[in-house]
């Protein structure tokens, strides 16, 4: 069966590192041609960043809709095998004949898990919920989210060795909690490798003038996705972190880190559209609400221009061309004061908003964790495809649709490498 129980594959296999939308797409497109594929994912679930998104632009459709189809494809196709909680430790050999050492961290929950939830009920420890960017807590025995694939609980390693962990184990009627599970290392042979480890939101605290982390009602665009999501920390209510009040006046700060030599020198491709999309979240939730977007250039490639026009036609969304210089908090009201140089009028203006969203950019995951093998990078840390192929946002900033395109093409490149 296509799961972690499967042993070492034959040569001729494609290894896809990263189980987000790019990795899944590359893997499935290759498997549906007829090639064996392994997906390695460091999270306890497949789906990656898109699993955290509330809606896709421009259709405003739920990402889980496409993920469900992709999971169905994975379930039906025995050529796709996957490892969660797994990272690549070492790559040796070359195209056609790689030896790849994988390290799988313990989930502490085995295949017996039925997702009945008893361990979560019994667990008396709460930890920060990383899926929601720390905006709430989750039990230390948890299902990452309801669409998690595999639908299997995880025990947070922080409670291993405590009485709480014992409680989780004792609560499980199916003998699924395995507190003794250890990390395991094993080697697989593959013919081609595709790096698809995606991106991380740029650390907003690095932009000291924007005061992220110091201003209570200042969040990032990815946090906004979680706030708006029905399975997010507030059940989909867009409220201020400081006081839980509904937000009527929101602002978006574009290029928070992107197009900035001191941070991310490139454009992150998606942030303009993400903010345009997020104005629809708040406008839909509250017809009285207002949104302001502070931008340098609005980049709405192709069909996205139509979406921009639609948002622009909404009189309650305004656009100010200018770079935000400073963000502060009004200590009395906890409102957020934005100082921006309006490039059109040339004046410095200050405006007050109930909440502000930083459109933080994409940092390639390889800026932090390099490929443990022979890979090339550009100045910004993106992987330059060579012997080890790369696709999706670890190769260049892109939206979901173009990630799908390049991931499909990368599947062909990977197949060519297997065939040669």
């Amino acid at each position, binding site marked *: 069966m296509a799961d972690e129980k499967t042993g070492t594959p034959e040569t001729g296999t494609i290894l896809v590192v990263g189980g987000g939308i790019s990795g899944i797409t590359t893997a499935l*497109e*290759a498997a*549906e041609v*007829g090639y064996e594929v392994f997906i390695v994912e460091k999270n306890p679930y497949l789906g990656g960043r898109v699993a955290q998104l*509330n809606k*896709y632009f421009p*259709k*405003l*459709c*739920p990402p*889980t*809709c496409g*993920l*469900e*189809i*992709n999971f169905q*494809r994975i*379930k*039906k*196709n025995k050529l796709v095998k996957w490892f969660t909680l797994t990272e690549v430790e070492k790559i040796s050999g070359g195209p056609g004949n790689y030896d790849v050492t994988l390290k799988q961290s313990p989930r502490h929950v085995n295949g*017996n898990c*039925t*997702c009945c939830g008893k361990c979560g009920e019994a667990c008396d420890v709460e930890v920060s919920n990383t899926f929601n960017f720390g905006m709430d807590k989750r039990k230390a025995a948890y299902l990452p989210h309801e*669409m998690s694939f595999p*639908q299997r609980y995880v025990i947070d390693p922080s409670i291993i060795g405590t009485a709480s962990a014992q409680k989780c184990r004792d609560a499980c*009627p*199916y003998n699924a909690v395995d507190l003794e599970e250890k990390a395991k290392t094993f080697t697989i042979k593959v013919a081609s490798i595709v790096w698809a480890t995606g991106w991380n939101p740029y650390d907003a605290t690095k932009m000291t003038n924007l005061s992220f982390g110091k201003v209570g009602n200042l969040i990032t665009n990815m946090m906004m996705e979680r706030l708006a*999501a*029905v*399975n997010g920390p507030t*059940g989909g209510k867009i409220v201020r972190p400081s006081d839980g009040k509904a937000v009527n006046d929101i602002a978006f700060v574009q290029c928070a880190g992107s197009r900035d030599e001191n941070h991310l*020198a*490139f*454009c*992150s491709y998606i942030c303009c559209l993400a903010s345009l999309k997020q104005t629809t979240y708040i406008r839909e939730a509250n017809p009285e609400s207002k949104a302001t977007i502070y931008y340098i*250039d609005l*980049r*709405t490639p*192709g*069909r996205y*221009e139509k979406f921009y*026009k639609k948002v622009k036609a909404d009189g309650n969304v305004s656009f100010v*061309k200018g770079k935000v210089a400073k963000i502060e908090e009004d200590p009395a009201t906890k409102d957020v004061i934005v100082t921006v140089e309006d490039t059109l009028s*040339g004046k410095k203006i200050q405006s007050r908003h109930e909440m502000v969203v930083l459109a933080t950019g994409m940092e390639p995951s390889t800026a932090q964790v390099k490929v443990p093998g022979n890979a090339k990078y550009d*100045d910004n840390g*993106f992987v330059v495809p060579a012997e080890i192929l790369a696709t999706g946002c670890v190769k*260049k*900033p892109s939206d979901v649709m*173009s990630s*799908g*395109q*390049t*991931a*499909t*093409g*990368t599947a*062909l490149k990977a*197949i*060519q490498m297997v*065939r040669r």
Partner: protein
Amino acid sequence: MEKKLGVYICGGCSIGEGLDLEKLSVVATKEYKAPVCKTHQAMCGEEGVALIKSDMEAEGVNTIIIAACSPRVKYDVFDFGPANIVERVNIREQVVWSHDWTKQVKVKSKDAEGKEVVKEETQPNDDTQMLAEDYLRMGIVKAQKTNDVDPYLLENVEKSILVIGGGITGLTAALEAAATGYPVTIVEKAAELGGYAAKQRKQIPTKSPFTSLEPNTIREQIKAASSHPQITVKLSTEIARISGAPGQFAVSFKPAGTKSQWDIPPKKKEEKDAAAPAAEKPAEGEPEEPKELPADQVKCEDILTSDPDAEVFGAVVVAAGGRPADPSQFGHLGYGKFANVVTNTMLEETAAKGKIVRPSDGKAAKSIAFIQSPGLNGDDSDFPYASSVTSMISLKQANYLTEDYSDGKAYIFYKHMRTPGLYENFYKNAQNNPGVFLTRGEVLSVTENADKGLTVEVDNTILGEKVAVNVDMVVLASGMTPETQFEPVINLAYRQGPAFRDLELFDGYADSNYICFPYETRRTGIYTAGNVRQTMTNGECIEDATGAALKAIQCLESTNRGMAVHPRSGDMSFPEFFFQRCTQCKRCTEECPFGALDDDEKGTPKPNPSRCRRCGTCMGACPERIISFKNYHIDMIGSMVKAVNVPDEDEEKYRIIAFVCENDAYPALDMAGLHKLKYSADIRFIPVRCLGSVNTIWIADAMSKGNDGVLLIGCKYGDDYQCHFVKGSELCNRRMDNVAETLGKLRLEPVRVQQVQFSIDEYEKIPEVIGKFVEVIEGVGFNPMKGF
């Protein structure tokens, strides 16, 4: 296969607490005489699975009904191989996790003195039990009605690929497919390969570090394709028609610009009118019936006549590119009036030939104004069909100017510089070029001077003032219109018309509606790439072409295995037709979202199974109910509907049947269960491949059996449709008019049957949606046909 049923009821995950498993077993053993029926506290555990396996071995059980969790989980544990039928009955997420296990009942009794007292007592909830029993009945019936699937195998699946268009996209697709071992034919209507790419001096960077222009590599690609043993090139050639289906497309070629007997005959007028209301709008680009027959009129053969000289291909990549958009609608910019106002395409052609010179007199053009955004009064759109490509093109051409003339000055007037992603690196590099002046502003006018030079007046600049710049030339950063805007290109000999559909959704581009599935088209085996689906840079064309080549290969390999392509990838079932009862109503032909069916002159459908995506919309459309899949058919679902025990009126319980989309609504129901959201136990869900496959007979079955209402839960439709089969949920909705009429005839209230549009992430609304419908049904009361 002789079926031997085994029913396995799991008591784990609270199922045993919420239900009486013994009573549930009785449904299997008494009502359905299942020879084997067992319960276990964890059917998915080693012991449970071993129990099933031992019965398979010892008892010959081959039809396994597992009443436990959702089929979306434990799919691997309960996989007993293709030789056995496994049916999952979801009594966890959709029964015990979403319904109360007990209820408070007032019980009358007599106390010691014989006085009547009323006590509240907690009893097992018989509504929940009845729900589980109905699901088990439906599951058993479904398994009984499931037949073995024999895949549809074409005798000979052709592995060669046709690429339409010999520009950068077509050449890339061809080279990539050939490099993977598949023979390719490129058909190009021009006399040479290369398309617009061949008319470029240099190309926008395609690779890291994306800072500088790259030499134009199209010549190398042309050379590689022309000399590749696996690639055939047909120049000055067009497609007359493509008939057939994936694996066996028959393609008739013709010299470009000529007519051929294999051209698609125009639809007759009456046919068009008759087809239009039922089969949506006529397809884009459908050839108009010529008013007068030209003297050299060639009589076109009917679409079902086969061309003996046609060449056979397995799949098609459409890389037909586009045509430069005409910017003359923006009169204030002087295009068409002044000789030295040109488009970016015109400048590129000049630049490819030599130094940039003025069209009016051939003199060096040392100063050029590039206009990015043509609108006035704050309209910040780029030119139509620009995508984000034109900012890059202007930066590239500004670069040419400073290459050609050390004192060259390029002014770029923009509202937004659109250099997304790593293209920012190229933009930054241009900013360092002392000959390039980037100014944000609105171009008010372009006027011509005595020397044929031009004055460009710009307002709202960053400096806040109006400026006028004198230049030798003005270049309009106009876009590229897709070829599909003008021609069907693919000229399909399909009954639904020769062109792609829904082109109006994307301004004529043959793009996919799906964010997650960018290569999806409504014509199986035919994939689009490059400028035909969005204005793209060379680099984007190359990436897109590679993906399209993969999809083409994947389609013919899937066809070779008798498997469906996306979204039911791997499905080996396909629709079969019982033609003796066909009344030639053509509904299946017209409604199939993928144009899988053609029909002959009488109107009898001609199925093309390898075009089929297995959604079952034809089955839903057929009023004679002659269309079926081996494992999904009218009788199967009808029998499941009939298996529901409808209580008598005096029991005062409502019964509602809900047909739910298995891709979105069904997972949403599972998630509602996971969150333990509670809703009425009066409703029974039947998953369907797509709401498009719901045949109105099932609704009639439900109502005539005494059910009080029917709910259809499917995907959103409209321009931003979410239906994975494009039109399924919309077609279902259209059929509802007929349903309302039928109900009216039966003197039943039309509100008893309703369709709801539902997204997968709306699970928290499940109780509300169901609650509202139950209220409606309670409002109209019991089905008067109950008990008849």
